[in-house]
């Protein structure tokens, strides 16, 4: 394997991991953009999507329709969370809303544990997705699930881009994100916009949940925590609340994690997470608003 092939392989790895982070971070950012709410339950909505897929698949539904159902299930879960938990506290202080979202996280996670136990269970991936491509005599490899992750990320983000720049509802969402009272004053139905934001964000969580579980090979009720943490970091790197920023942040984080392991000696790379977070802190000191929002302070 030449040095060039090695670098290409690591870039493939970074793009694949980054896509996953980006997908989760974008969903987190949509909700934050509209509601100024850090939705900790986002990871658990991913879990709902993954479990719906596994259960329907076990009942005999083929993988693709089961996955679609998982995405719908996640969107529905997001809708219910907004309606039941977040709407009553929408005008409450930030701390109240933050704690509400933490509470939702715990409730969903424990509900999952009660229903399915917390033992990890196998995520049944169709054999075709596990197959790998060998380029340049096997020096560069990637699997179909990597390809699917990258492709789904691109397609769904293009759709999102079109939705928020070309449709009335999307434009309304951006208006509400910019200034909620003003949007209300000019006659936008803010309730409807928030519902749409949650549906879209949670559908993203559903897609991300299925892909995450497919990569991990297992599902379990606590599976949402790690992706949430990664997405949170990605969103902060990019500029919290900015969708493009979340996307960029996801890829930056994925690349950092892969390249630290790939290009540093293993005695150093074993401190990977410490290095990543040190870079994050140093970076935030220079650009407190993240990559794309240099002048705006982040408020949680």
């Amino acid at each position, binding site marked *: 394997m030449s040095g060039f092939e090695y670098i290409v392989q690591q870039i493939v*790895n970074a793009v694949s991991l980054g896509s996953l982070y980006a997908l989760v971070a974008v969903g987190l950012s949509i909700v934050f953009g509209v509601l100024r709410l850090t939705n900790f339950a986002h990871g658990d909505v991913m879990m709902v999507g993954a479990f719906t897929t596994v259960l329907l698949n076990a009942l005999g539904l083929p993988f693709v329709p089961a996955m679609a159902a998982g995405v719908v299930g996640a969107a529905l879960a997001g809708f219910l969370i907004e309606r039941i938990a977040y709407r009553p506290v929408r005008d409450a202080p930030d701390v109240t809303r933050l704690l509400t979202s933490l509470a939702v996280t715990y409730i969903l996670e424990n509900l999952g544990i009660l229903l399915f136990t917390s033992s*990890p269970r196998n995520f049944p991936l169709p054999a075709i997705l596990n197959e790998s491509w060998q380029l340049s005599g096997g020096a560069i490899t990637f699997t179909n699930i990597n390809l699917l992750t990258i492709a789904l990320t691109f397609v769904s983000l293009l759709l999102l881009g079109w939705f928020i720049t070309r449709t009335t509802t999307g434009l309304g969402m951006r208006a509400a994100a910019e200034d909620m009272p003003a949007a209300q004053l000019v006659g936008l139905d803010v309730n409807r916009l928030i519902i749409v934001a949650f549906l879209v964000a949670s559908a993203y969580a559903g897609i991300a949940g299925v892909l995450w579980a497919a990569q991990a090979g297992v599902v379990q009720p606590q599976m949402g925590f790690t992706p949430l943490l990664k997405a949170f970091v990605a969103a902060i790197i990019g500029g919290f609340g900015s969708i493009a920023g979340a996307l960029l942040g996801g890829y930056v984080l994925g690349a950092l994690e892969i390249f630290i392991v790939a290009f540093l000696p293993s005695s150093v790379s074993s401190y990977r997470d410490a290095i990543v977070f040190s870079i994050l802190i140093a970076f935030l000191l220079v650009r407190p608003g993240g990559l794309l929002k240099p002048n705006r302070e982040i408020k949680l």
Partner: protein
Amino acid sequence: MITLTRRNTLGLGLGAAAAALLTSRTAGAADPIKIGYPANLTGIQASLDGPMLNGAKLAASEINDAGGVLGRPIELVVYDSKSDATTISTVASQLIDSDKVVGIIGFADSDSVLAIGPQVQTAKIPFITPGATSPKLPSQIGDDIFLAAFGDNVQAAVGAEFALNKLKAKTCYLLTDIGAEYTTLLSDYFVSAFEHGGGKILERDTYKTGDKTFTAQIAKLKAMPEKPDFIFSSSLAEEIGLILKQLRQAGITLPVVGGDGYDSPLLIEVGGEAANDTYFTTHAFVGEGASPKVKAFSEAYKKATGKEPENAFAPLGYDTVKLMADAIKRAGEPDPAKIRDALAATSGLEGVTGTITYRPGVSVPDKSVSVIGVKDGKLFLADEAAPSFVAEP
């Protein structure tokens, strides 16, 4: 989850108490002897601690059916400690202060034992871990800590000798999960034994418990100028299946060797075809063609739980309850200090996973190690051995 488990235990205890009442008729003598059992029934350790608890409950009900210990039934007081150090500490206080247990049994991993250790040692309650394998535990915590399993230095040495002699492998790529005490130590012991036997570690790399992507490390392995003969991956059950899958997908077909952290149904469920040509050291072989003693255990386990033992941790849990009961019997009364001394004097106690003898001053038993291999998606007993060289703990 806690309430559910608690209710089960209470039910079991009440049932046992009722049975004892019928036979002995003296109310005082029927008070159960309480043994604490913190179990990581949820979280990362669940696939090991779950079967272990089933085995432990089976032993307890067998002991009670045979009249209990010292004329009294034993009761396992079970709480879910959630694979979480803070919860473990809360559960420990509950067991020691409120439930007043005379001994505690628990855990399949060294980190959990380290979390409960100080409290147990301060309260002077004898503690046996069925599945934790760090030989350092007694020296790290104190003389109330006993292991029912072999030490990691022993299993790592068997793994190293298996690779050198049976796989004829002289060079190794070492991958270590640095997120756990168990995996870190196992790697160190493996390196000592492997290098002592003339093997050479060509390259080392690390990851952390919970990682889902190992592609960066794998690409590094593929780029090595000299190809190793095999991979030693010091990993836990949740990651090893995934590591194997990603290795095979990258076209690496080298044999993979590891420790008893692999011993969970997840290895084959998640790994699938990728799990072939994997070998791991563990406490007993519970699959097809197991020894008569293990077979008898498997049948009783199946009768009690409705399924085959998932891994070697089930018989370990079983053996440990028998070990504790034996010590209580020899102590003559359920007094923690006397039980500890009786435990330390255990000699030639036959169990499903081997014979337990504690040499004077050593709380880690000498037991033989099973090497299990995977072929065509099935487990087989590849070797059973005691190592010729063992690294110091």
